[in-house]
Structures are given as C-alpha cells and as structure tokens.
C-alpha cells in the first residue's frame, strides 16, 4: 500500500505529461488527431482513474495526518 501510494502520483504525472504533449501536438497538427484517437481515449480513462485514486489517497492521507496530529495534541494535553 505504501509503495502504491508512492508510485501513483508519479504515474499520474506521466499520464498528465503525455496529454499535455498530445494537446500541444494537436494544436499544431490536428490532422494527426492525437487526442481523439481510440488509444488516446483509453489512456485518458486510465489517467482519470489514476487521478481519482491519487486524489482519494491524498485526502485519506491528509485526514489521517490530521487525526494523528489531533491525537498527539490530546495526549500531550493529558500529559500536562
């Protein structure tokens, strides 16, 4: 899980980078149809799923950090 959490953001960056590249190429040469191809559409679904999972994991991680922070604050308060 920890390894996956580390890899996922990079995979998302790679996919987004690819689509930025396609977008630039598509502006220059729309005849080549870089964005609307069948393969590009499949890649886009993968990118969307990756982005969703990365975002969910980020939210989960943030909430977990907040919870831990709160717990540690409470325990330090009790200690006093």
């Amino acid at each position, binding site marked *: 899980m920890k390894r996956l959490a580390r890899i996922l953001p*990079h995979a998302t960056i790679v996919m987004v980078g*690819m689509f930025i590249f396609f977008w630039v190429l598509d*502006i220059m040469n729309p005849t080549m149809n870089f964005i609307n191809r069948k*393969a590009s559409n499949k890649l886009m679904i993968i990118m969307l799923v990756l982005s969703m999972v990365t975002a969910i994991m980020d939210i989960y991680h943030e909430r977990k950090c907040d919870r831990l922070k709160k717990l540690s604050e409470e325990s330090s308060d009790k200690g006093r």
Partner: protein
Amino acid sequence: MKNKRMPVWAMAVTDTLLICAAVGTFMLFDYVMPHSSGEQGTVVAQVDSDTKNSFVLPTSGNKETEEDIEKSVSSETDNESSAESKAEAESSAAEKAESSAEKNESRSSSRKKERREHTSENWYDNTGTDEYTADDTLVQSVLNADVQSEQVQYYESDDAVITIEKKWFGEGDDKVTYYAADIYVSSVDVLKTALAEDTYGKNIKDSIFSMAAEHGAVFAVNGDFYGNSEEGIVVRNGVKYRDNLNDVDICVLFTNGEMKTYTYEEFDTDAVLAQGVWQAWCFGPMLLDGNGGVLETFNTTTYLNSENPRSAIGYIAPGHYKIITVDGRDPGYSKGVTLSELAAIMSDEGCMTAYNLDGGCSAMMVYDGELVNIPDRGREISDIIYIGG
C-alpha cells in the same frame, strides 16, 4: 533502517524521462506499427459501360511536335543524312516549337488575366489576422508571377493523355519550383487509387515506387495518407472503407467525372454516396471555391499553413484534372508554398476546384517508375493516385 528518498531534481528528471518513454511507446504503437483492420470495404459505385470512354481526349498536337523534335535530333546525329534535310528538319521543329510556345504563352496570359479579374471581383476585405485567412498578398504575388515552364514528360494512350511540366517562379531563396501534370482521361475509372500492400488499415505503408510498379502505373502521386487517421471518409475506386467524419474538408470524385470539395459540416454522407462516389479523400483543406477563385479561409492551422512541399489535385472539367507537386525546404531551388500560394497556383492552372493532399516528405510524383520532382527525403505512404495499369 532509514528509507532513503530520491532528491527532488532526480525525481523530476525521472518523471520527465518516463513521460518521454510513455509518449514514444504510444507513438510507436499507434503511429508506426501497422494494424490491418481486415475491412474489405463496400462497393458504393461502379463505372458502367455507358459512362466508359465518355470524355474526349485532346488531339496529339504536342506529341507530334515532340516526335518531330526527336526526328530532327536524330537526323542531326545521323551522319548519312544530307545537310539540306538536317536544316529542313531543324527549321520545321523550331517553327513548331515556337508556335507551340506562342500558343501556350497566349493561353496562359489570357487565363491569368481571367483569373485575376475573377479574384479581384470576388475578393473580400482581407484585413483580418486570422490564421485561417488566405493571404491576399501571397495570392496576388503568385497570380502575377512570371511563371516559366518546360515540358518534362508526355504520355498518350487510348485512355489518358498526361503532360507534365516543370514550372518555376521567383528568384533566390524565394524561388518556387513545381510540377504540374495536366491529365485527360477517357473515363473516370482511369484515374485510380491504390492502397499500400493492397490492404486497408492503420499505418500500413509502402514506397510510391513499389505501389506504382505493382499496379503498372505510368504516373503516380501520393494520396491523402488516410492510414494516419482513424476518422474521415475513405472511398477508393468505388469501394467505401469508412465513412465516419472528422473535422477536415472532404474531396469527392464522382463517377460522372465531376470533382467537388465539401466542408465536414456540409457533407451529407448518404446523399453524397448516393450520387456515385469513385474516390473520396480526407486531408485538405479545399483551396478553391468551385469557380476557380481562391477561398477566403482555409480549414487549417498556422503550423500546417507554413511553407512546405505540397501535393494537390485540381478539377478543370469532367475528365480533365491537374495534379501539382510543389517542391520545398530547399532554398534556391524551391522554398515550398503556403496554402494561399498553393491555392493561387491551382487557380492559375485553370482549376475550378482544388484540394490539398498530403505534403511534406510525402509530396512525390513518379512517372514511369522514376521520380519527377525532388522530394524532401521522401517517405513511405498509405496510398497513391495513379494512371495506368
């Protein structure tokens, strides 16, 4: 054990390299590796016996002149022939060549005048800076250019008459050189197309020479490189392979010999197919308005509109077509042309309708198995337009 973390710069470099690798793999898979779809196509039109040989071919005036010139040249080298006959043959050839040149010049100047009048009448206020807008200055510079020409090939058979001329205008780095094939066919099925490896599919490519040789083509030019795209109508020799539209202009050659160009918005697939489509290309953009006038705007981008080698097909009358190959990327010989200049060339050549085909390294014209033009490297292509076989 402490988990060692990668520095940020190394992470950024790694991600960038990964993006490049992913794009490269995608390109290799989707734009290079051939994918045969197994699609056999549907016959949508046939040239029946009534429409066969329906167009009249021109008389062979040119051929006679050429033969005479050849005769005169051979008589020059013939040691046994008398000096008198040599002089006669030379003067006769020179006279014919001169009269032919005069005729061509007067025809060309009158056509140029008509075209200028036509474009000035219909021209619009070209003050916008839209990247899709035709450049009036460039159009006028081509229409007013002193175009020089020389005939490089002549072919005549029962089905077709082809005259290929090398033409050029401009000087120094602004020089433009192009090859104009004036084509007359006796029926529309003489103007054929061929797919690489005779197979419809994505990224299936072959050299123009082997395609021309396989089909016994006397004359061949590159087509629209349909194999680079998954969309756009493809009809070849009356067989429809696909009819999904993308946002490019469409060119249709009908079985009655007419050629029309359409924007993708106005293209009604069923209605057009019902009229008998012999060929349909999807590359573009279309260049002329159907009456020989340069269009006000082109469906293209700034990048695609830059000076490049180009190929285009034009329509003059049923059975009479022009195919142009403009060389480029070679300053001093030919700089290439923008779409505005190409449209002006097609208009100047007397075309009513014209359509841009694949260009760049693909722009190649072959006659009798040999290159006519000087392409920029050249490359394997998906399809050709040819005559013969």
